[in-house]
């Protein structure tokens, strides 16, 4: 029993430095929920039910511009597609868990819990991966909820002139650069970003959905070109 508890605590401990980024990000979602006219209770419901900051911010922005609900739902789901990838990577460690336990682990899945677990597992083979992951996921989840509530309660006190809403694109930017690991991912980002700029005026904010599709296609195309170029160079 003891080593399992240690692995859970090791996960929680490894998460502590990351919380400096999680807490402000969660507070921003609370602040912006109140800014678009939701009550702190609605904001709390959103952060518990959805628990995916980037999609929450995108939905709040769409709410502000009065987009139809279907666009909000599709946008959120597209932003959250990355969880399918995380789920596939984590799945082998969760295989022996009961369905309810798997559901709990899945519900708490976040970018941070995934990132921290993966980097730790790369250098620590002997850890109980499920407990380590649970330690980090629960720490992120608790910090997220408390900070989001704080943000929704304090939100009305922060003057709009300070421009704190600019913190979203900035935090997305840091996450975006972290996702740029090779040329095809850079191609995906540039193509997706430019499509979003050109499609900004399109109705229903459909530009975002279009940009995601163009970005993914460009990444795949760049990867194919890279692979086609390699054998010819070898000859």
């Amino acid at each position: 029993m003891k080593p399992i508890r240690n692995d859970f605590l090791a996960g929680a401990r490894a998460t502590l430095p990351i919380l400096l980024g999680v807490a402000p990000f969660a507070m921003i979602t609370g602040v912006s929920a109140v800014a678009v006219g939701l009550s702190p209770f609605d904001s709390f419901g959103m952060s518990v039910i959805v628990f995916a900051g980037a999609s929450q911010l995108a939905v709040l922005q769409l709410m502000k511009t009065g987009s139809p609900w279907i666009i909000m739902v599709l946008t959120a789901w597209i932003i959250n597609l990355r969880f399918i990838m995380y789920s596939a990577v984590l799945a082998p460690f969760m295989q022996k868990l009961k369905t309810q336990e798997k559901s709990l682990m899945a519900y708490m899945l976040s970018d941070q819990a995934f990132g921290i677990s993966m980097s730790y597992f790369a250098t620590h083979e002997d850890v109980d991966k499920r407990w380590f992951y649970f330690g980090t996921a629960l720490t992120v989840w608790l910090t997220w909820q408390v900070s989001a509530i704080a943000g929704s309660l304090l939100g009305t006190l922060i003057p709009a002139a300070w421009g704190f809403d600019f913190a979203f694109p900035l935090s997305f930017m840091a996450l975006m650069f972290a996702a740029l690991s090779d040329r095809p991912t850079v191609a995906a980002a540039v193509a997706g970003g430019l499509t979003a700029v050109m499609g900004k005026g399109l109705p229903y904010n459909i530009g975002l959905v279009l940009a995601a599709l163009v970005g993914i296609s460009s990444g795949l195309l760049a990867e194919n070109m890279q692979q086609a170029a390699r054998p010819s160079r070898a000859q």
Partner: protein
Amino acid sequence: MSSAGVWWLFLLIGFGTFLQRLSFIFLIGKVSMPEWLRRGLRFVPASVLAALVFPALTHPAGTLDLSFGNFRLLAGLVGAVVAWRTRNVLLTLAAGMLALWALQALF
């Protein structure tokens, strides 16, 4: 949107997101991930995050503004350099916000 309406919206988004999170954790051993899906998903974070960031800088007030008067674009570029060099969320936030406040105070 009514208060009941937003809760339905959250439930719909949340349920779909939960299914995405659960997908392979639940399905492992039953099906394997198709190759095209695995390859395509790799590009989701870069594409989507860029699609959120670029227009926020180029359209600060809803219309395209590529002038030097667009402080968010300039501050965003400062943030981009810091994000690129450090890959650190907190430093990027600090640099971008300070740049924005400095521009607003000076001009």
